[in-house]
């Protein structure tokens, strides 16, 4: 069997035996800086804007909802099942479809929508990144198929960066089959290294921090 063959060759090459525990691993290197909440929001916006992401600081959930309404303008949108979107009133905006729990129905809705509206489990200040964990509240395709992605995120979700994310979430696989970090709009530079946005994922991303 190939499994036995490969493991055997590996052990022979390394001079190790079956079931031998590994040498102690070098400790993981995590450096979590102290950053105050205001500075996190500023850094997050700066990083995302540098990637052509659009940002909005909402004073209240109602303000966030108004921003989303202005962007979507009543056109076809799919909202994820995140409770925070409902709290903000986003899910009852005209043109917004939500509450989908069936894979095929969701896929059809996302393929036809102009906008995908989500919340986010975390955001990373230093890189302008959204962190999404796939769940019954957040489907993967809402932030992927529609040409525009809108995310409405409570301000306390903003972490300083990757180090802090893996500190609060040392084992993402325990929570979800899919954690995705989204840093700006989908892009390519495969033809003459000319930057083109919106290849397979959304070409436009808006993040509202409430």
């Amino acid at each position, binding site marked *: 069997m*190939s499994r036995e063959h490969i493991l055997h060759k*590996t052990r022979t090459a390394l001079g*190790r035996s079956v079931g031998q525990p590994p040498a102690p691993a070098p400790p993981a290197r995590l450096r979590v800086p102290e950053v105050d909440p205001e500075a996190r929001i500023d850094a997050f916006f700066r990083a995302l804007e540098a990637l052509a992401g659009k940002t909005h600081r909402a004073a209240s959930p109602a303000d966030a909802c108004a921003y989303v309404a202005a962007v979507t303008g009543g056109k076809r949108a799919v909202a994820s099942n995140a409770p925070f979107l409902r709290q903000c009133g986003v899910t009852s905006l005209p043109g917004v479809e939500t509450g989908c729990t069936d894979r095929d129905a969701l896929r059809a809705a996302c393929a036809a929508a102009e906008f995908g509206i989500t919340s986010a489990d975390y955001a990373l200040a*230093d890189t302008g990144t959204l962190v999404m964990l*796939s769940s019954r509240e957040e489907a993967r395709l809402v932030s992927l198929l529609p040409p525009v992605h809108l995310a409405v995120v409570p301000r306390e979700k903003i972490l300083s960066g*990757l180090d802090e994310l893996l500190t609060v979430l040392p084992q993402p696989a325990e929570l*979800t089959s899919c954690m995705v970090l989204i840093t700006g709009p989908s892009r*390519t530079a495969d033809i003459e290294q000319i930057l083109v946005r919106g290849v397979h994922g959304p070409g436009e991303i808006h993040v509202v921090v409430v």
Partner: protein
Amino acid sequence: MTALYQVNIQKTLGDPQLQSAVYAATGRLIDHRSKVVAPEILPDYQELRTQANLIKKHTVENLDYYLEQFEAQVKAHGGQVVYAREGAEVVDFLARLAKEKGARLIVKSKSMTTEEIELNERLEHHRLETVETDLGEYILQLAHQRPYHIVAPALHMTRYDVADVFSRRLGVESEVVPEKQTRIARNVLRQKFLAADIGVSGANFLVADSGAVVLVENEGNARLATTAPGIHVAVAGIEKIVPRAQDLVVFLKLLGRSATGQPLTVYTSFLSGPRRTGEIDGPDEFYVVLLDNGRTKVLADREKRQSLYCIRCGSCLNHCPVYRKIGGHNYPWVYSGPIGAIISPQFLGLTHDPWLPFASSLCGACAEVCPVKIEIPKLLLELRSEVNKNQRRGRRLERLAFRIWAWVMRHPRIYEMLVLAAASVIGNGESGQWLSRPPALLNRGPLRAWFSQRDLPPPGRSFRQMWRARTRATRG
């Protein structure tokens, strides 16, 4: 070097359009990287490299343990692991899986490992349509070419080449604006994603403590390929393992920066198992194929096993003066540049292309920019010495020459006389000009080949002469 390689390399060197395309593209990648690893931007860059090197070293030295841990974790999350000794076993597995599930269409995200085993061509023999979905890879698949560069596969093509390929293969009207070309590809591929039965990806990292496949990309095609179809199969070399999810912090910070100058790429997916109860979308089945294909052979050599630390950022290619001149298609295998020059001979065997480790100036730029600190020049020297050991015959003259050289170097007076003699043969060099054509006396035998690629600086005063003058002056 075989005549064919020589002819092809000469052709590349003589193609001004290609030369400037490759030089400009790699130059831009160099600039992008240097901006984000600068000490004022990333003060702990060197520490990150050291940590990455330590983690890779530790993992490779305990690889059997981490492979088994990874396998157990994938199973615990509802996925399956398949071991494959070589490409044929990957093809067999996929063909069998496709048959069992009645699958016809496979969408693929970019993967050097699948390029290595020519997966697409081989699956076509099983009547499976396999579509590359990374824009660069898609263009190359249509053009029937292999990647020119590890991270920028179509780096050598112009928008006019792309227009030509698209109109020929897709039957669309010639379109030369990259934005519109991208739109054409998006529309064709969107239909493929939604119709595909299986999504095949590579893996940038395999996380042992999570049973996770980590994919790093900018376009969203890897996300789609691993989300839309009902089955996800990741094909990865066994060396892709890192022990803990927390180790990703270091590697993700280095990979995007080294490859394209991005602090993080647009999408980083951390995938562990099929979709879980309650999750709305994602695949129902999740497989990881762990490929050997020569890797265990490399493991056996204590020194050279560091070749397996590579995270395929492509930075050594961009910084290599040889790659930048001869391009990516003149290397014997899919891995080009300095990393290709050390892994191809080890994976395929040294007898395959014994000239390859010699195709380097040993300038050391590759080692300096390597995010995991692989000592590429040192490994090139080791491989050279192995090639020489294998080729003892027919080298008698060369060995004699080096023995004479060693003797001369131990006798300073004789050395000096010879230098003076050589200088007088070469002449004074009219008005300090470099010598592009050597005097007839020296232009023969192996020296002729040496001179054919090099100019000599005008002979001036030798170091010894300068030193003598200096000591005389200080004494006086």
